[in-house]
């Protein structure tokens, strides 16, 4: 044994109290109790934002992005139809909880049903297709995404077509707990959703962090590097990829359940279109494919821009120019172009993403052994 044997990784991890994630987390936990930020934004720009509601959206988006990261970043499966599984989760939630149907499982039932249905859909789509190489899988998943959208749009008898299923009831929480929350309980829907989304997101990040350091995490790296050698180690490449694809689909379905419950409607099927899949993929790639912190950063930057910064800036610009209804001055209308430009610039100047994991960085800078 040599001296180097003591440290598993060359750099020892920082102690918990020195890590800024912890403070970010604290801010997120106490945030809903401080609505004064909304008032400040409203005073400056005149835009009535509910930041806590936007944060619920951002966190749901982050859960969806982590699901896609499992498929694309870890397993190396280029998937262009993540919105399909998101939609399946949302509509499953609708079917098991709206009044029209006899099930009425409520929110807690739907967050069990939605991942199961989406996971099975992932399994069925993945079983014949995960063996396909890169581009072909991308084409299949792209097609699947459109098929799901068009089917939900036209399956009027089940999905209520373009109207979507609504109203989806709020999560049921024990009356004692609600009473204990006092004032907060009055706006209980968004507060409950806020904490459910936060807890799920933290749990997912914890699970993925543990997984990266485990046997399964190594297996994914090995699989991306060399399928034949992985098979020689007793790893079944097809099964491993299929598992990642199905679990990713299930998590996306879970995010869909949260999304629909948060909105209290499944929204119209066209919400879950190809653009939606691409925006999630943009977040993952710009942040850093295969990097947990990168994906969270990507979602943080892009979706915060989309849901917080862009409406505020739009208000400010329109106020400055004095034209409040000019469509060219609304940043939201430029969203896809801005995201596309960001993606191109990232690919050109920082292909590993804004905040990559050391390993993926090394994979993209061939031959440097991760030093660069």
């Amino acid at each position, binding site marked *: 044994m040599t001296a180097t044997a003591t440290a598993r990784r060359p750099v020892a991890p920082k102690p918990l109290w020195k890590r800024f994630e912890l403070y970010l987390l604290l801010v997120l936990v106490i945030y809903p109790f401080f609505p004064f930020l909304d008032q400040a934004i409203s005073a400056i720009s005149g835009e009535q934002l509910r930041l806590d509601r936007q944060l619920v959206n951002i966190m749901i988006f982050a859960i969806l992005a982590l699901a896609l990261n499992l498929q694309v970043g870890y397993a190396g499966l280029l998937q262009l139809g993540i919105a399909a599984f998101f939609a399946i989760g949302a509509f499953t939630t609708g079917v098991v909880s709206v009044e029209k149907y006899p099930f009425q499982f409520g929110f807690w039932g739907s967050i069990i049903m939605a991942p199961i249905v989406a996971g099975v859909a992932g399994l069925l789509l993945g079983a014949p297709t995960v063996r396909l190489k890169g581009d072909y899988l991308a084409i299949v998943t792209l097609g699947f995404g459109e098929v799901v959208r068009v089917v939900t749009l036209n399956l009027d008898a089940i999905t209520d077509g373009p109207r979507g299923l609504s109203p989806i009831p709020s999560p049921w929480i024990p009356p004692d707990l609600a009473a204990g929350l006092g004032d907060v309980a009055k706006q209980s829907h968004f507060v409950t959703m806020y904490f459910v989304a936060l807890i799920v997101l933290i749990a997912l990040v914890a699970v993925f962090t543990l997984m990266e350091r485990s046997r399964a995490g190594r297996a994914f790296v*090995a699989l991306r590097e060399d399928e034949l050698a992985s098979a*020689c180690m*007793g790893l*079944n490449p097809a099964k491993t990829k299929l598992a990642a694809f199905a679990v990713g689909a299930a998590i996306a379905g879970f995010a869909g359940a949260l999304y629909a419950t948060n909105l209290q409607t499944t929204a119209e099927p066209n919400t879950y279109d190809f653009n939606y899949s691409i925006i999630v993929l943009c977040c993952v790639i710009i942040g850093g494919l295969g990097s947990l912190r990168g994906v969270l950063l990507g979602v943080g930057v892009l979706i915060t821009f989309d849901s917080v910064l862009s409406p505020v800036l739009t208000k400010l610009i329109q106020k400055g120019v004095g034209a409040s209804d000019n469509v060219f001055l609304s940043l939201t209308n430029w969203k896809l172009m801005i995201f596309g430009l960001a993606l191109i610039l990232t690919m050109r100047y920082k292909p590993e993403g804004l905040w990559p994991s050391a390993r993926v960085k090394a994979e993209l800078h061939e031959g440097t052994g991760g030093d660069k």
Partner: protein
Amino acid sequence: MSEPLLSLSAVHTSYGNIEALHGIDLVVYPGEIVCLIGANGAGKTTTLMSISGCVKTRSGTIRFDGKDITQMPSDRIVRLGLAQSPEGRKIFPRLTVLENLEMGAFIRDDKAGIAADIERVIALFPILGERRHQAGGTLSGGEQQMLAVGRAMMSRPKLLLLDEPSLGLAPLIVLKIFEVIKTLNAEGTTILLVEQNARMALRHSHRGYVLETGAITMADKADVLLADPRVQAAYLGEGDH
């Protein structure tokens, strides 16, 4: 002798319409080192890949340790105790040396046993211990080969398939690798070896097979093959070095 650990009978393997193996018969008994020699393109690697399940055979049967493994997927074959160190080393360049070894033990979950076996590999190849936190891709060719052999040992195989362990290595490193092969064999691992370096392979093996364009043309004790004029002319070259 006892029951063979591995036996191939009339194994045919094709790539598309081109048949690479025209009916291979081969046996390996427990405790042996058997080598398979032949020219480029003779089908040596294809034979190993057929055994390990990485390439599907068209007909014939392969039995390992009393079980028919002919159509078995490769990951299940590894679990039966048959490990392969593929041609061209195929280590995982971005995983560290330790992680490469841990990948070799992918089918096991006894942490203490895995740690002990890592130490065993490092005892055999001390340089791997010094480089344990380095990415596999930063090792020299010889070190990578040591890592590939060490990684294949990590699944504690009954039978180890080694594909060209001497390929592209300096003579001293080749000697070192063969020493370790001997040691492993003495500790009870049966070895089937594919080699271009026929002299080295035959000297360290009990028996040998000569493969020519997809068929076995000679099979005998290693020293008999070493002395055979046809083998000398075709695979050992002139003189002794």
